[in-house]
């Protein structure tokens, strides 16, 4: 109850009907909402007043004669057919206009890929980084490209008045342009099973500068190379086949003690130094190893040079053959550590 009262007091709840407006589009939608609303109020009051007035005036009283009345009146009936028709055409027109604004993103909008699965969202930004949080810059058109990994979900941002279903096997798009800073809700609107109610998230609207800073910190960008290498091992799929504790997965060689150990490949013997590691990471299966299928997926576009360097740093750090002078590992890349 307290939370609710705080909400009301701070204005975060919005008006009686609608939440606060988070975007310019929200204003347009709310205008139409209240346009329709007042038309509805008018007609409802009309019906209510007529009903109550007739019920009172024409209630049965013993001995009271009934008055003469027509059984139909074509002119009247046509009138109350045509006037509603005109009204709904007007409503349709405004609804259509507003919808086209909502539905067609500007061509230069900032693109965020949204992937929904039971029961969470994940967001991928243009720099390739992935996050479970949605941050967008203020006053910038942002288009969301929506897809699902399993069943149909919904993507609803109440403060922006946008919503679209997220359908597996296709891409749906919606766009927003936030006009004020703050955090607001993301709700899933399409029933998707047990935890549908918990499938909620937040969208954080920040200034451009803050947004860029946050984006830079994604993907472990703030981590030192060894830790970042480990992070990449976990999140880029290397973990599926390469173990780091010496366990034999049967799918790929373990990384433990790999650095500076001899590797027997089908085209000769190699020493697993930085050059070798760099080559086999960026050109998978180029040196097939006996006993393993050449199943390593391509990494082009998946790992940039900094990523490769950080992975090599990590591989070095778990090898008994690596004796750095200093505890901090360095890889063959540079790059500002934020």
């Amino acid at each position, binding site marked *: 109850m307290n939370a609710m009262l705080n909400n009301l007091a701070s204005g975060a709840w919005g008006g009686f009907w609608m939440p606060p407006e988070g975007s310019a589009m929200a204003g347009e939608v709310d205008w139409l909402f209240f346009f329709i609303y007042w038309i509805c109020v008018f007609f409802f009051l009309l019906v209510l007043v007529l009903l109550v007035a007739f019920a009172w005036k024409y209630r049965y009283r013993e001995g009271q004669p009934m008055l003469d009345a027509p059984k139909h009146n074509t002119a009247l009936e046509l009138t109350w057919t045509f006037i509603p028709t005109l009204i709904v055409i007007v409503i349709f027109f405004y609804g259509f206009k507003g919808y086209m604004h909502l539905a067609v993103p500007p061509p230069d909008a900032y693109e965020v*890929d949204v992937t929904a699965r039971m029961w969470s969202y994940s967001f991928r930004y243009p720099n*390739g980084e992935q996050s479970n949080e949605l941050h967008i810059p203020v006053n910038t058109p942002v288009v969301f490209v929506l897809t699902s990994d399993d069943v149909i979900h919904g993507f609803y941002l109440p403060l922006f008045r946008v919503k679209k279903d997220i359908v*597996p*096997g296709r*891409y749906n798009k919606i766009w927003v342009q936030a006009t004020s800073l703050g955090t607001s809700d993301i709700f899933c609107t399409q029933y998707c099973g047990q935890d549908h109610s918990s499938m909620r998230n937040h969208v954080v609207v920040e200034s451009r500068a803050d947004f860029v800073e946050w984006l830079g910190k994604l993907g472990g960008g703030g981590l030192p190379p060894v830790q970042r290498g480990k992070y990449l091992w976990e999140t880029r*799929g290397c973990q599926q086949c390469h173990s780091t504790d010496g366990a034999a997965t049967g799918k790929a060689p373990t990384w433990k003690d790999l650095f500076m150990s001899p590797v027997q490949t089908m085209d000769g013997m190699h020493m697993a130094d930085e050059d070798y590691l760099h080559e086999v990471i960026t050109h998978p*299966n180029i040196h097939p190893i006996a006993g393993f299928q050449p*199943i390593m*997926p391509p990494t082009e576009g998946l790992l940039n040079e900094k990523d490769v360097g950080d992975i090599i740093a990590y591989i070095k750090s778990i090898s008994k053959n690596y004796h750095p002078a200093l505890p901090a590992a360095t890889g063959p890349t540079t790059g500002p550590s934020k």
Partner: protein
Amino acid sequence: MSTASTEVSAHSHAHGPGHHDPHLAHHFDTPEQQFTSAKLGMWIFLGTEILMFGGLFCAYSIYRHNHPLVFKFAAEAYLSTKWGAINTVILITSSLTMAWGVRAAQLNQKKLLISCLVMTLMGAAGFLGVKTIEYSAKWDEHVWVGSWNKYNGDNDASYATPPPAQPTTQPAIQIPVPAYSPTAIADDANTGLDVSQIKPRYAYSFNQSIQLAPPKRASDAKPTDEEQRDERYRQLSASDQWRVNTFFSCYFLMTGLHGIHVIVGMGLISWILMRTLRNDFSSEYFTPVDLVGLYWHLVDLIWIFLFPLLYLIH
């Protein structure tokens, strides 16, 4: 609208020719009214049947419109126009014999009615026999419905269609794309349905053997039918290859539902036959024969639409 009461009675108690007619139900005034009512009811019911099949025809149209080459390939490779045409002739003939039978019932020709009904039944049985031949041929070729279809993505012992190809920087060996890859997603411009390459549900897993490129044949060996078919299959685009299963779903659902209606029709005709043998029908009362005849004509009509849509795709 007149407000005066009319002096007409709601229902007359006149006793016409149907007087004490054992077939006249108590709520009808005359046998003609009852017959008209029954026929109207039957036509409405046939309308519902058309709408039910309509849903299937609609699904067929959508998928065929979006993937015409898939349907062309599958129909040419796996459906025998010969058997389809034979079935069409059988069913049309059985419709003829059925209509003839209704006429015979109208004219009180019991023997003719019996032979017409028997011939219709034989036609129906022949139809089902041909369908059995076709269905078992499909079973042998592993192209049944759903998971029993070698083109179905669910099928682990798959025909191992390589998944949709990656962009050009690929070694000759096809490898599945990991689930998290942000690489370019092929946009299927025809349909607006994008093939999401990040789907892990291909007939493929890390533990399976790699499907290599087709083995080279000696250049002067004539390709077998199966090899020709596989060759045409490989010529389909990646997203089309993935959808051949849809054709078979349409085929089996449509012909299957139709086959069920043929079986039900056989049951109804047998029932009419039994009643004929019991002398239930005469020129004054042959309504059930008429109604079952209407049903049978509908079953035939549906097949006449199914045949060109499924078998005659060019």
